[in-house]
């Protein structure tokens, strides 16, 4: 079962690869959207703060224009009381660096020009701890004095931190959900493919009445299954017609053969003239030959069109069967000066029909006996390897050229070197290997013709039980 499983792994990988690609794309997209909106929000918050500072500066500049230093100091002293709590920062200094008003002790850093922005940390005492407060401020020149107005950005930074953490969480959650969805999807696809593949394997192995599982979601899988099932119905129908035809053919051919045989038989028994009697006996033998060919043909047709359910199968030991068949053919081989050797040490169990497998062995052995020269060797070996029962029948005859091996499995193929010579003998109609192929087929196996150097080796592989 290496074939279908290997195919399935590729499918599974392709489904999960697709899911992974979607996951990455989704995470990138979500990150870009969230980060952009974070940047925009941050900028807007800063802009709002700056606008506030600028409008305050503007208002204070107006007051200075009306009331000079005196008035501004008054206003600032009032504001510091009111706004100190609100996180506003003021500093009014004269040119010499003396503080005129405000809640800062000194100029935090050098300011070179009017309207410049500056950012600094303010250490505030809250209870016993000292806490850093980031401040963003702007300074203007009023006459020869300098005025600084700023706002405490702690709150803004807190919001920014919250936003960043929300961003990280939402990206992580997106990744998790997308990952889960992808995992579920790829498992589902893999399971559907596996169902279809195993149903197909079953059908190929002869369970022709089996159908692909069709759900009711009407997705591509269901549509595909429906089409395949219709195709299988059609094939099944044809096989049924074939079987009926074979039944009728068997009946219509065998009944007249029966009459002819009985007539000839009783004719031979009553005939007094020896020449006549011989002719009749010969004709009876011919009828038996026709009957054997017909039986083989029907068995091939039956095996090719029959379903597994219709064929009786049990668990059987091919090794035991090999020994039985070798023992059956041993005296014939010995009579022809051929060594027949069975190599089947371990039991080799498979699901099979004993009669069909015995006939397979009989055909292979008779074929080998036909072509193996005096003092040649025929070997029958069976072993179980990697879940497969391997049956090998090899001879030391002339073999079949590689180019003709496929052809050799077709019915009535008379090969120049091999079947041609024996076609007339013992009813050899060139059906032997075709029947072997049909029996291997109905057991879900594989057949190979190989070079035995010299000779032919026929390798049949079946799924082990």
């Amino acid at each position, binding site marked *: 079962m290496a074939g279908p499983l290997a195919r399935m792994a590729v499918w599974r990988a392709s489904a999960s690869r697709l899911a992974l690609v979607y996951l990455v794309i989704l995470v990138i997209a979500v990150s870009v959207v969230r980060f952009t909106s974070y940047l925009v929000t941050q900028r807007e918050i800063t802009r709002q703060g700056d606008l506030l500072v600028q409008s305050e500066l503007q208002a204070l500049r107006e007051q200075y224009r009306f009331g000079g230093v005196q008035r501004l100091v008054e206003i600032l002293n009032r504001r510091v009381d009111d706004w100190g709590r609100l996180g506003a920062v003021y500093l009014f200094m004269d040119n010499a660096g003396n503080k005129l008003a405000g809640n800062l002790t000194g100029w935090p850093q050098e300011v070179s020009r009017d309207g410049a922005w500056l950012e600094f940390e303010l250490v505030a005492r809250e209870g016993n701890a000292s806490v850093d407060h980031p401040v963003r401020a702007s300074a203007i020149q009023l006459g020869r004095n300098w005025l600084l107005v700023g706002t405490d950005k702690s709150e803004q930074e807190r919001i920014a931190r919250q936003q960043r953490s929300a961003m990280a969480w939402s990206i992580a959650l997106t990744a998790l959900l997308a990952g889960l969805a992808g995992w579920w999807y790829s498992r589902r696809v893999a399971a559907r493919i596996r169902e279809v593949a195993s149903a197909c394997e079953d059908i190929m192995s002869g369970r022709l009445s089996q159908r692909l599982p069709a759900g009711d979601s009407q997705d591509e899988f269901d549509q595909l299954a429906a089409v395949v099932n219709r195709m299988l119905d059609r094939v099944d129908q044809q096989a049924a017609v074939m079987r009926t035809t074979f039944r009728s053919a068997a009946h219509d051919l065998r009944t007249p053969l029966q009459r002819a045989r009985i007539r000839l038989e009783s004719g031979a028994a009553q005939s007094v003239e020896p020449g006549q009697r011989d002719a009749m006996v010969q004709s009876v033998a011919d009828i038996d030959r026709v009957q054997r060919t017909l039986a083989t043909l029907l068995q091939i047709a039956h095996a090719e069109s029959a379903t597994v359910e219709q064929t*009786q199968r049990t668990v059987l030991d091919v090794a035991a069967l090999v020994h039985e068949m070798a023992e059956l053919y041993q005296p014939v081989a010995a009579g022809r000066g051929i060594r027949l050797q069975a190599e089947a040490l371990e039991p080799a169990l498979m699901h099979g029909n004993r009669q069909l497998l015995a006939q397979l062995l009989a055909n292979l052995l008779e074929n080998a006996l036909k072509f193996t020269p005096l003092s040649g060797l025929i070997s029958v070996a069976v072993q179980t390897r990697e879940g497969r029962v391997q049956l090998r029948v090899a001879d030391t005859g002339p073999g079949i050229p590689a180019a003709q091996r496929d052809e050799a499995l077709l019915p009535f193929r008379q090969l120049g070197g091999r079947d041609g010579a024996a076609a007339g003998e013992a009813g050899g109609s060139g059906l032997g290997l075709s029947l072997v192929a049909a029996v291997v087929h109905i057991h879900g196996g594989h057949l190979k013709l190989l070079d035995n150097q010299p000779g032919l080796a026929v390798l049949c592989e079946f799924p082990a039980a």
Partner: protein
Amino acid sequence: MRILLVEDDRETASHVISGLQQAGYEVHHCIDGREALTTAREQSFDLLIVDRMLPSLDGLGIVSQLRADGSSTPVLVLSALGTVDHRVEGLKAGGDDYLVKPFSLAELLARVEALLRRAVGSSAASRLRVGDLEMDRISRRVTRAGREIDLTAREFQLLEFLLQHPGQVITRTMLLESVWDLHFDPQTNLVDVHISRLRQAIDRDFSPPLLHTVRGAGYVLREHS
């Protein structure tokens, strides 16, 4: 011995009837399946020979209905259908033996005799004997005129089957079926070769010969030729 033959092909039937009558059997013939079932239920027969494909009621239908009635009369099924599965179908339906057309009259007679004798005799005996040839089936020893004979496991089985049917003609096909459990005709003369080996073992050094060839039919194991 009364035999009911159910066969719709008149010519085949008339030859089979004359063959059976010459062998000393009384034969009743039916063409139609339903008629045959009624006849088989009303009268008593020692053996039924039933063709598989019949008008009105299939041959296997007759057999399974009779079996359902509790009848144990042996049945030989004749059939134009000869694949492995068809045979199994025939035996499953309650047939005791299955013969594929075209068959020889000799084959049919041999099987009829085997079925009738089986119905009468017992095959469970622990000692079998024909003339001075004896088989102990428990100790698996074979002796002739008191001398032990060495046989392979298969030769033992072959002889055992022949000893169970003394004086009966046993065909090659019957031996393949019973001794090797093979239900197809091999193209080579396999059975003849095995029989000649057995003959070497039991007849060569003794007299008179017990294992005889019946031309055109098969083999028979008996004291007098």
